[in-house]
């Protein structure tokens, strides 16, 4: 079952992990992990969140020492105490969340911390330009990082590890922030570099991508490697079943439950940048009906976040109206809108959804501090909050030893289940779900999808924002494409493909009959 540890006679594999075990008091994060990465291949590591991928990568990158087992790089056994030991051995890591200073230039970001290699002047610049070609980065090293798009930022991250002499590059969920077209570009870059002898360890749970790019796949489940597969022959479904060890859920909703009752009606919504120079939301019109899921597709940073925050009242619209069940809520604050029946699953549960150091039941009160069962007038009802938290923990399968543990102690999927459970309580009429299953494991994802479908069938109106196009297509009754603050196209989820959506999202124009460009009246344009 586990990948072979037999070593080629003439050429040593780039990385061999043998019998890696890492225990934290009470839990075994990794047990007896075997992983062999041949030189010059793209090796994918798949597993659910919490399966132990990150721990394994931390061990390989020198951030934590293993309790048992050995690491071999190019046939030599090594022992990493710090990431700089790993970097010296030629291993580099590109983190999922970019670690770049926006207000520094590309060159400054690359050189930062590695000043001893080529100085900070012309020599460094020459080296960066030389390496830029390999990563497909076509910008001057003097450009500020804040002016770069997401894909280019990622290239800067790759450039950073190349500059430090990495031959084996760990890519941690590199496609999470990219649209399909950018993913293709990244894959071209990876293949190009592969030909020049670089080795990649590609961590992902997007299985189609794994199959597209990887030469071999190792699956990790519950802290141990459960097998490897040939991506040329295995199907995504088979891979996923290896990951979760059971039958897979699918996001597809069956019959339409859309009614004629308009719940949310947004008209002419406009929002300007703080300096008033350009619109973030430009004349957005949208209707969400009872029993309907309206999905918003778009590359991140095209106004989706702002749209949600404006509907929630966290940002003040420049003009336009927001009507909830025939009631004008444009002038109301966030709390009043919540009381009017909006549930809100924010895109970043750590920043917007939870009080991390507070117990679960205390988090139940957030957003419901004026309502039953968590409050009575100006007084909190802590007993009511605790009781209702118990209900959420039971109904939404939140895996926790109790409701008194701090929210930070739960895994991402369980935190998200708690947030979804909270936002679906109190009978909302509208649920705004921003990336509701981002960074959660397959089990939690299935549960969250089921709950959204169930609430929709019961007449809930849902506004769904997601970067996961399969989720968007699978759950939505209507899809709208957002580009530069405008809703530019409508798509039919029954016929549209992720690729069609992708090109509409980047403004490449519709290539499919499933995507209908919204007729935008360009008034007063010169």
């Amino acid at each position, binding site marked *: 079952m586990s990948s072979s540890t037999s070593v080629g006679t003439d050429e040593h594999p780039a990385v061999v992990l043998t019998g890696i075990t890492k225990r*934290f*008091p*009470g*839990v*075994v994060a990794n047990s007896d992990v075997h992983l062999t990465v041949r030189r010059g291949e793209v090796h994918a590591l798949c597993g659910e969140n919490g399966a132990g991928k990150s721990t394994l990568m931390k061990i390989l990158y020198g951030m934590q020492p293993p309790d048992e087992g050995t690491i071999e790089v190019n046939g030599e056994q090594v022992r990493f105490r710090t990431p700089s030991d790993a970097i010296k051995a030629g291993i580099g890591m590109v983190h999922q969340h970019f670690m770049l200073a926006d207000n520094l230039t590309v060159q400054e970001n690359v050189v930062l911390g590695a000043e001893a290699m080529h100085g900070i002047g012309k020599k460094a610049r020459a080296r960066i330009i030389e390496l830029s070609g390999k990563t497909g980065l076509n910008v001057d090293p003097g450009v500020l990082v804040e002016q770069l798009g997401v894909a280019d930022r990622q290239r800067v991250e790759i450039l950073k590890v190349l500059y430090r002499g990495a031959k084996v590059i760990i890519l941690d969920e590199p496609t999470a922030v990219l649209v399909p077209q950018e993913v293709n570009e990244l894959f071209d870059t990876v293949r190009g570099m592969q030909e020049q002898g670089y080795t990649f360890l590609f961590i992902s749970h997007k299985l189609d991508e794994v199959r597209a790019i990887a030469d071999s796949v190792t699956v990790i489940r*519950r802290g141990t490697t459960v097998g490897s597969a040939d991506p040329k022959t295995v199907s995504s479904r088979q891979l996923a079943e290896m990951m979760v060890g059971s039958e897979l859920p699918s996001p597809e909703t069956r019959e339409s439950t859309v009614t004629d009752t308009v719940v949310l009606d947004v008209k002419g919504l406009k929002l300007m940048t703080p300096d008033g120079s350009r619109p973030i939301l430009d004349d957005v019109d949208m209707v969400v009906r009872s029993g309907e899921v309206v999905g918003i597709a778009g590359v991140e940073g095209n106004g989706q976040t702002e749209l949600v925050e404006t509907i*929630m009242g*966290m940002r003040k619209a420049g003009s336009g109206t927001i009507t909830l069940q025939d009631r004008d809520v444009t002038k109301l*604050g*966030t*709390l*009043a*809108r*919540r*009381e009017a029946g909006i549930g*809100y699953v*924010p895109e970043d549960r750590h*920043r*917007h*959804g*939870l*009080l*991390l*150091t*507070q117990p679960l039941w205390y988090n139940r*009160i*957030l*957003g419901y*501090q*004026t309502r039953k069962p968590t*409050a009575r007038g*100006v*007084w*909190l009802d*802590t007993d009511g909050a605790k009781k209702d938290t118990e209900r959420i923990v039971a109904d939404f399968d939140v*895996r*926790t*030893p109790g409701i008194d*543990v*701090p929210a*930070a*102690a*739960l895994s991402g999927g369980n935190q998200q289940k708690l947030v979804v459970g909270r936002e679906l309580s109190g009978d909302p009429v509208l649920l705004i779900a921003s990336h509701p299953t981002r960074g959660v494991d397959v089990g939690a994802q299935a549960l969250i999808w089921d709950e959204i479908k169930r609430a929709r069938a019961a007449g809930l109106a849902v506004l769904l924002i997601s970067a996961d196009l399969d989720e968007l297509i699978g759950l939505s009754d209507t899809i709208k494409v957002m580009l530069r603050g405008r809703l530019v196209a409508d798509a039919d989820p029954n016929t549209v493909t992720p690729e069609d959506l992708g090109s509409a999202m980047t403004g490449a124009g519709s290539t499919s009959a499933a995507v209908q460009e919204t007729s935008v009246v360009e008034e007063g344009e010169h």
Partner: protein
Amino acid sequence: MGHLRGKLLPPALAIVFSLLLCGVALVISGANPLSAFGAMVTQVGKGTTFIDIVNSTGIYYIAALAVAIGFQMNLFNIGVEGQYRVAAVVAAVVGGSIVLPTGIHTLVIIIVAALAGAAWAAIPAILKVTRGVNEVISTIMMNGLAIGLSAYLIRRDVFGELRGNNIRTAEIPESGWMPGISFGGGGTMFGFIFVAVALGIGYWVMMNKTRFGFELRASGESSTAASAGGVNAKKMVLVSMLLSGAIAGLISLPELLGRDHTFSLNFTAGIGFSGIAIALLGRNHPGGIAFGALLWAFLDKSGLALDNVGVPREIVTIMQGSIVLSVVVAYEVVRRFELASEQRRVGRELGTVGGAA
């Protein structure tokens, strides 16, 4: 269990550490640390020291509560110092110029003091809410203004009068006093101490049982999550700053109502700054603050004994400083440790559950 340990361990560690530090400082300066500490402890039983400590504790307690309300939502009200000074002079002027029945007179002075403190705090609060001015800067500047304003108000051509070589406001008539509890030679305990205790209880109830306390704590924990949860950040800044200022306004009342009955040049300054240290020490918890205030008062009052054993009294200041510094460090260390152990505990308990699933 672990919860309690996380709360009590850091201050205990910090106090031990700062005792050691001061011991070393004493040894270097050529004194015997044991006899110095011994002198401080025995001083408590001498003369009026014990009641002095109690009175001082009450004053520090109110000051620290005022600071703690702001701290709960990461609002640094450095201006408690100025707020209580302005409140003291306004309360003394008003109290000395009105005639009211006993009791009601006292009550009016208390309300005036709270309103004056709140009004002084309102300026930085409004600046922050409307213009985004950092409250640290503005409250520090307001402290400077408060000194000037109070000096102006007690000029002889304004509200002041010359008594001996001291300038002061008109004395508050006896109807406006608040009686204390006399212990004869042991001193007199301020009646306002009971108000301080009530404030502490009220603070606890507000923080733990009311919607306002929830919104305050949520804002302090994560302003982004609070705003997504419908907490109006501007309103919270305004209300908590006004409340902080109102309580700050009460700081000088134990002395004003119980002993001095006038605002003079002998005004006790610096309590607002001690309040910041004590709030840090007590982790904004009403019980912790009480302990911190007691410790502070003890160091202040029994430190007087150090002169008798030939040790400079300033060693107390070193001790206060090192306690605050080490407590901040110790809390952070213990907090990280606790969070990590909590995560491990959850992992462990779920590891058994997960195995069966």
